[in-house]
């Protein structure tokens, strides 16, 4: 019965969303593993992050192709169009989050090889917050919840503060003891990558607001 059938176009949109959510959960796992590798001093976890990269990259290509097809063949409008446009950006954001998780994993590898240890300062707190922002941005996409997206945007300021804090204090340590430079550089790189992950999560949150409300809130525009 035609009226009970899900339109085949809607099936394609669902399949696209499912792939994005899958990609999001692999990216989340990568971020979590990369930080756990640092906290537990466990290099094997870092290697799993690098494995996840391949899965993320091939999903990115699959999603890119699906988006081209949907745009060319189905002429989506209104909320469907906003979803497709947002999906393309979220696709790119998730792939880059995967890259940053790999960067963290590689920095962990080099830190574990270095001679001198350094305390992690506010890195664990920063990691926890970045993971939370990523998880919330993806949940806001899954549940179409712009309120949750707004909460993610608010957390970004805290991340920036923590990033600056880590940088200052690690630099101080490196000045005091040159043997800690390798480790210190690793920690600064990790902090920077976490800051990027948080920033990309806010991008995702902004896209969700765009889908739900057709508002573009980038660069503080939502404050006007």
């Amino acid at each position, binding site marked *: *019965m*035609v009226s009970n059938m899900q339109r085949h176009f809607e099936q394609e949109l669902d399949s696209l969303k499912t792939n994005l959510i899958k990609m999001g959960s692999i990216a989340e796992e990568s971020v979590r593993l990369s930080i756990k590798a640092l906290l537990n001093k466990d290099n094997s976890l870092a290697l799993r992050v690098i494995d996840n990269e391949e899965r993320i990259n091939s999903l990115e290509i699959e999603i890119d192709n699906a988006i081209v*097809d949907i745009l060319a063949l*189905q002429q989506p409008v209104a909320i469907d169009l906003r979803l497709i446009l947002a999906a393309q950006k979220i696709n790119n954001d998730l792939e880059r989050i995967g890259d940053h998780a790999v960067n963290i994993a590689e920095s962990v590898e080099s830190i574990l090889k270095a001679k001198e240890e350094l305390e992690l300062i506010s890195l664990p707190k920063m990691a926890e917050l970045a993971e939370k922002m990523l998880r919330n941005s993806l949940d806001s996409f899954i549940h179409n919840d712009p309120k949750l997206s707004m909460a993610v945007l608010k957390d970004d300021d805290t991340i920036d503060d923590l990033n600056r804090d880590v940088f200052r204090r690690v630099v101080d340590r490196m000045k005091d003891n040159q043997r800690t430079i390798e480790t210190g550089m690793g920690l600064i790189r990790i902090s920077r990558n976490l800051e990027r992950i948080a920033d990309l999560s806010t991008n995702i949150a902004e896209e969700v607001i765009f889908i739900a409300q057709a508002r573009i809130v980038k660069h503080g525009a939502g404050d006007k």
Partner: protein
Amino acid sequence: MRIQSTKIKAENLNLFYGDKQALRNINLVIPAYKVTALIGPSGCGKSTFIRTLNRMNDLIDNVRIEGSVVIDGTDIYKKGIDVVELRKKIGMIFQKSNPFPKSIYDNVAYGPRINGLRDKKVLDQIVEQSLRHAAIWDEVKDDLKKSGLALSGGQQQRLCIARALAVQPEILLMDEPASALDPIATAKIEELIYELKKNYTIVIVTHNMQQAARVSDFTAFFYLGEIIEYDETKRIFTTPKEKRTEDYVTGRFG
């Protein structure tokens, strides 16, 4: 372009209305259980071509055809072909729906009855199945005695599809099936076509390119009686090989 199994093959097909050549050297393979769309500007030959597939052009004076149309291995223009049998195998749906001035039931039962079927139980079954496959059963099942003409435009078109399905064709030809319908009725027809291709080979002529993009697996672009390009629909609408195809689908001409 991958075609798994061929249903219809047009080979070196040329058609003349008197002195005027309407089809030029058409070579086209239509795959089984897929939807093939024929697009092109007015007068390009797409409707003429689709009518060669069930020899509807025979009914027009002064038509001369050269070349062959092979369906399941048989050239339908060969001498001795039973055109009536051919047209049973190939259902046709027109732009303007044309239900008979009879009840819904009798519209659908007409074909089987003409073929000699009298058993009421079997007829009832065929009518119900056909109306179900045309996605209109639930809307009409409570009053099959209602006149076919009393239905809405979109419903009439689906009734015509049910009527075509009742004689168990293998191929459905549709000439602009939705161009007289509103957007909702059009969407229903398109979704129906998507379901029907599981069981039938479908060829659809449409001047609505977006419809061809939404509904078909393969698309042939006709222009001035020739096929300019034929490929998977995906390719035609993302990276067509011919500039003329690209100009047409982007709306730059025609």
